[in-house]
């Protein structure tokens, strides 16, 4: 068989193989195109137009962006959103790792603890917020106030204090979501070779040494990925403040996504400005993801 003919056969075979692959992907791509890319493109287009509800009236360039950014509530929402991210990393990034390590090191009832930490994640999001709103209610009937009342402390108001609302919302979000993240870490830890543990045990390694020299290095890459996912997720926080504090007091818990919602559905129906906020959020997240990818790649190169 000539080299040319052999090459053609190989090309055909690869093509056949690729056609099958593409056919498998087509439904997914179509759905992606229809439900993700098209709305995304439409949103960018809408942000450049004066709109009347969802209709485009006239092209106005970057006017929507200028108008949105020049308002105080945008700056407040931007600062708040970064504040959400900061508190989320402070309260919520290490906790799942800690939970995963504790459960991983547990010898009895591992399944029970796994279920227990995941349980809040199974509750509907709104139910969780309503549950916690009763906990943080400022009256004498608020659960937390009843508890501190036993210690002789007078009732406090929690959700009306601008300096407390964001940490409280993040605390609630962490309570709900930490278990699911912990399970991912546990899956990562399950991939660690048992020989490593045995060797460490033979060498007399303590739990602390096992954690710092085997477990944490093993999940470091996973943690990096989860970090960026967490930032993306928290940056889009919306329903928690919307239900718990309605963005208040005095916009102290207003997030960028909530601001977007207000422009679109909060009475003004300004979809152009809402789209402008959405595009800004997307750009910020793209930049943050790019920064992460850059450092991640550089780290990989060093390794």
């Amino acid at each position, binding site marked *: 068989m000539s080299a040319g003919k052999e090459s053609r056969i190989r090309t055909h075979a690869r093509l056949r193989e690729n056609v099958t692959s593409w056919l498998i992907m087509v439904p997914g791509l179509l759905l992606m195109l229809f439900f993700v890319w098209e709305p995304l493109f439409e949103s960018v287009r809408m942000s450049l137009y004066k709109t009347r509800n969802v209709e485009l009236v006239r092209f106005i360039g970057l006017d929507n962006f200028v*108008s949105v950014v020049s308002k105080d509530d945008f700056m407040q929402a931007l600062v708040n959103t970064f504040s959400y991210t900061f508190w989320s990393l402070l309260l919520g990034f290490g906790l799942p790792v800690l939970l995963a390590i504790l459960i991983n090191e547990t010898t009895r009832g591992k399944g029970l603890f796994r279920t227990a930490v995941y349980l809040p994640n199974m509750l509907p999001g709104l139910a969780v917020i309503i549950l916690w709103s009763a906990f943080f209610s400022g009256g004498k009937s608020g659960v937390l106030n009843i508890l501190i009342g036993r210690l002789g402390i007078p009732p406090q108001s929690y*959700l009306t204090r601008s300096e407390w609302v964001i940490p409280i919302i993040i605390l609630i979000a962490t309570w709900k979501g930490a278990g699911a993240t912990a399970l991912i870490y546990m899956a990562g830890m399950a991939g660690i070779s048992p020989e490593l543990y045995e060797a460490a045990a033979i060498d007399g390694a303590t739990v602390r040494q096992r954690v710092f020299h085997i477990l944490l290095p093993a999940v470091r890459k996973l943690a990096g990925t989860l970090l960026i996912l967490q930032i993306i997720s928290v940056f889009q926080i919306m329903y928690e403040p919307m239900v718990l504090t*309605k963005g*208040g007091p005095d916009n102290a818990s207003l997030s960028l996504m909530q601001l977007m919602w207000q422009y679109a559905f909060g009475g003004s*129906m300004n979809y152009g400005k809402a789209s402008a906020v959405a595009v800004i959020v997307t750009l910020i997240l793209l930049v943050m993801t790019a920064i992460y990818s850059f450092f991640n790649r550089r780290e990989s190169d060093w390794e």
Partner: protein
Amino acid sequence: MNRMIQCVSLMLSLCLLLASAGGFAAAEGVVDGDLTCTITLGNWPPDTASAAEKALFEGYRDTMARQYPNVTLVPDYYSYTLSNYVPMAKGGTAPTIFQPPFTDPQLLISQHLVGDVTEALEKFGVLDKFSPSYVEMLADENGRIYGLPRDGYVLGMHLNLALFREAGLMTEDGLPMYPKTLQELAEYGQIIREKTGKAGLVFPASETYGGWLFTNIAWNFGCVGESALEYQDEDGRWVCNFTSPECVAAMEYMRDLRWKYDILNVDATTTDWAGAHSLLGTGEAAMNFAADDSVDQPTSNKGLPVEDFALIPFPAGPAGRYALAGGTCYMFAPDITADQAVAAMAYLKILGKLPFLDDDIIAGMRADYAAKRDRGAPVLPAISAWNDAEYNSAKQAIVDEYCNVDMRLYSDFFDSLSGGTISLKSEEPVFAQQLYRELTAVIQRVITREGADIVKALQKAQDSFQEYLDDEINDY
């Protein structure tokens, strides 16, 4: 503006007692019995609704099937919000009839998101009985009608009499010594808080609710006419006016309620409309700015016995006595056909929403009032949207049959409407929801920070809302 206020006041008062225009007549014969079409009905009672409510609507459906056998009714659980309605209207899936609050009709009309039913109303001969104040809310600049009032309301105050009793604020006749002025409201609220430990006043200062209620307080401090919160200048441009001395004084009053008299509920900034009713109904607060159409909220919904509940007029301020007149309306899908519009009116007639009374309508009203009484909600006279004295008095007679309350606890409220001692006012004319949102933010600042600079906060809100007005209406 004062003239308009007087007009609204006069018209609504006339609706209650004095109107003399025309009599009511059966509309039989105006609609072809062979009318054939399908209409979708939003706000159908969900499966979780009470058996009485479901039976009531099934009864309406049966009546419609009997009178118009070729009209197909499609029940829909759809409940209107601006955010969910717009995509449905644009996508052609909006129900034929839906029920927005009176804040939205003008926005929906200006955006061409609702259907014109003028011809259908003419066919039923009711166009000229429509109260002018409602025409103003539900028509475009050419007088075309796009909606029908479902029910009107006037803002007053709900009282929890159990707390008034505990605070020693009851007369020997068993009537509450209630606040007639905003100043008395602060003082009585303080007495209640000191004597009972509960909030004197529940003020829902979240989202748009705070601003919505505050406009009433502001009117009573003089934010009307030339000092209105928003007005049109000589060039026809809309101008926001939050920094007038009257508005500043009203906001200072809000500050005093929190920091001087300390009568507000503790979580005011997270309390919404339903939460406010809940706090009053469960005895956590003694007074709530609320209307006659929501008396079932603290009572039947939250368990406050009707004998512990009272409805009083909105307290007067230093510059007058104003209260909001608003309500909920029926509006129609933008693609409604002429036949569907007629069928929709026929259905609303069966519901008793047109000024006709026949056996079916009277039976429907009786069932409605009986259901209210059974679930422990006060049965009260409704504020009519029709200038039809005979119709209004006939309805009142049916209400009287089912009345389950001591009317002395409500008479001042209704007397203030019929006697003209209170001036009724519709909501701020343009982009009211956005205006409320801006004012709510100021209220939140003022009641959460003792040293808040009120003028600065109002100026900031004014700049923001002015930009909004310029963007959406002045420079459009």
